[in-house]
């Protein structure tokens, strides 16, 4: 594969996604748009949490904490720079540029928080790690609640409305592409090795602590991105948006979709978000629904909807693609040939 083709493939999902979203943006009614934003944000959250909980097999419950870090960082930047117009640029462009900087800063600070939380806690595993990450998530929230600078319990309000479908869609695509490329790379395989057997991974030269921290940091960065996006959609950043209930929601999405399955995370994030919106009158039963869903899942399909597999690994999907290929060429293709792990983000664009 030539370099030019690789570059082209790198940006292809964005090239396809951007114009569609840009066209969708003006015609979409506001109340549907906010649902779509929330879907996109949840896709970012679920897919990024999947890198830790699914790929690496470490159970983190602190995703909301990193969201908060990202949300507040971005809010501080956009509010702080709201009056400032970057030189020689029209206001709209300048605003978008400031938001881009804010998103990047949100990812960076969340990543730093990821390092700080990950380094000490990733020595633990299983339930202990879950408890510690939950604790850190709550610490981040209560720190915010007690800092005047961050608006304490009332949070920051009056954020500029910067999040739109294009930003959210691009972020979701970026997260999925990241997860997919990670999954088919040396780094991703090292994460899988840790999930499968930590002792063996270590013996095969995989720096298990290092890779766990890396996965954690990557995941935290994207959680920060999600936090920044959602806070600039509802124009508010309060500690209440980032309680551990939020973390649990994301965990449910990942577990439901299947730990380790990117398509599983994406689909369950979409389905859960939309169905919860549709059932808005029954808001009070939200946690009951979650609990019931999880119990049903554990009983009926403990590995999640997709297990560790992707959509295109499923028998039904394979049969479809095989038929299509058989129709296309007389030779046809076996499932093994259809499945090509070395290629890019097939089916996610």
């Amino acid at each position: 594969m030539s370099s030019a083709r690789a570059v082209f493939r790198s940006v292809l999902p964005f090239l396809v996604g951007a114009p569609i979203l840009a066209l969708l943006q003006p015609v979409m009614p506001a109340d549907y748009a906010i649902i779509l934003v929330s879907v996109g944000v949840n896709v970012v959250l679920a897919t990024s949490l999947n890198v830790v909980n699914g790929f690496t097999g470490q159970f983190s419950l602190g995703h909301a904490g990193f969201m908060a870090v990202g949300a507040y960082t971005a809010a501080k930047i956009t509010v702080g720079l709201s009056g400032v117009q970057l030189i020689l640029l029209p206001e709209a462009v300048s605003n978008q540029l400031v938001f881009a900087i804010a998103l990047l800063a949100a990812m960076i600070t969340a990543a730093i928080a990821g390092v700080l939380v990950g380094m000490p806690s990733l020595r633990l595993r299983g339930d202990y790690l879950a408890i510690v990450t939950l604790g850190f998530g709550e610490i981040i929230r209560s720190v915010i609640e007690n800092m005047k600078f961050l608006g304490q319990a009332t949070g920051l309000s009056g954020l500029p409305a910067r999040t739109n479908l294009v930003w959210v869609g691009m972020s979701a695509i970026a997260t999925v592409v990241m997860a997919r490329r990670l999954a088919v790379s040396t780094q991703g395989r090292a994460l899988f090795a840790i999930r499968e057997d930590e002792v063996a991974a270590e013996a095969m030269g995989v720096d298990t602590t290092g890779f766990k921290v890396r996965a954690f940091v990557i995941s935290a960065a994207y959680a920060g991105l999600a936090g920044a996006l959602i806070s600039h959609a509802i124009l508010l950043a309060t500690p209440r948006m980032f309680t551990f209930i939020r973390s649990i929601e994301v965990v449910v999405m990942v577990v439901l979709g299947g730990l380790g399955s990117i398509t599983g995370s994406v689909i369950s994030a979409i389905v859960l978000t939309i169905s919860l919106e549709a059932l808005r009158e029954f808001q009070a039963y939200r946690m009951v629904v979650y609990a019931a869903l999880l119990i049903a899942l554990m009983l009926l399909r403990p590995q999640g909807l997709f297990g560790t597999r992707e959509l295109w690994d499923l028998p039904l999907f394979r049969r479809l693609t095989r038929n299509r290929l058989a129709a296309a060429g007389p030779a046809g293709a076996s499932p093994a040939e259809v499945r090509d792990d070395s290629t890019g983000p097939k089916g996610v664009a």
Partner: protein
Amino acid sequence: MSAPPLEISHVTMRFGGLKALVDFSLTMQPGELVGLIGPNGAGKTTAFNAVTGVYTPTEGDVLVAGERVNGLRPHDICVKGVARTFQNIRLFRQLTALDNVRIACHAGATSGFFDSLFLTARHRREEAHILRRAEEYLAVMGLAHRRDEISRNLPYGEQRRLEIARALATGPKVLCLDEPAAGMNAAEKLELLALIRSIRDRFGIAILVIEHDMRVVMGVSERMLVLDHGITIAHGKPEEIRRNPKVIEAYLGDAYLEEKHIAVPVEGQAR
């Protein structure tokens, strides 16, 4: 003359009051096949763990190619050139045979997360290289046809071979095999040991084998070490070991006791 690939000098491993391994010394030359035997609980696997960094030796030194490695984490020791297999197979069970080997093929890989994110030239070059190497190792162990099979679905013997392929893929100077023939019948064992010898000849690496089956290990190794209760009771050529009264006592004595009390058929004598 360069330093030997593995030099274990006076390693003692203590767990509280228990001495699992006492004053264990062994120097291995490239291309040498050494057998490590002893009754159950003699400290064989402890010796492996002390060498590969699972444990840090209480006393003594482990040198890989002249470099002191005790105290390093297992993954560092692996990078220095010691690879191992496990007594109870520890494959990455849900991954394909190819991925199992690819995970071990990271020697010299320098591309990081951002390389794979942006599909840089370096990333693509290294991935291609890793794929080629992994396929080679699968072929060496006669597993080329199992490339895309999920490893937990492989038959037992092939799982053992895959574990060896995976260990080889780390590019070791010393390969430590912990009972590679456990659970195999006599014919399978001979086949495996022939394979191990061919690996040694092909890659010129030093191989340390733990094996219960005296007959098999005597047929394959140039040198043997016998452990009993953590103490090296004999060290020499297979013929010398066979006649060594201490070895006979350790084996027959233990075997006798085991038969009396728990009726475990003792490997080595039974066949």
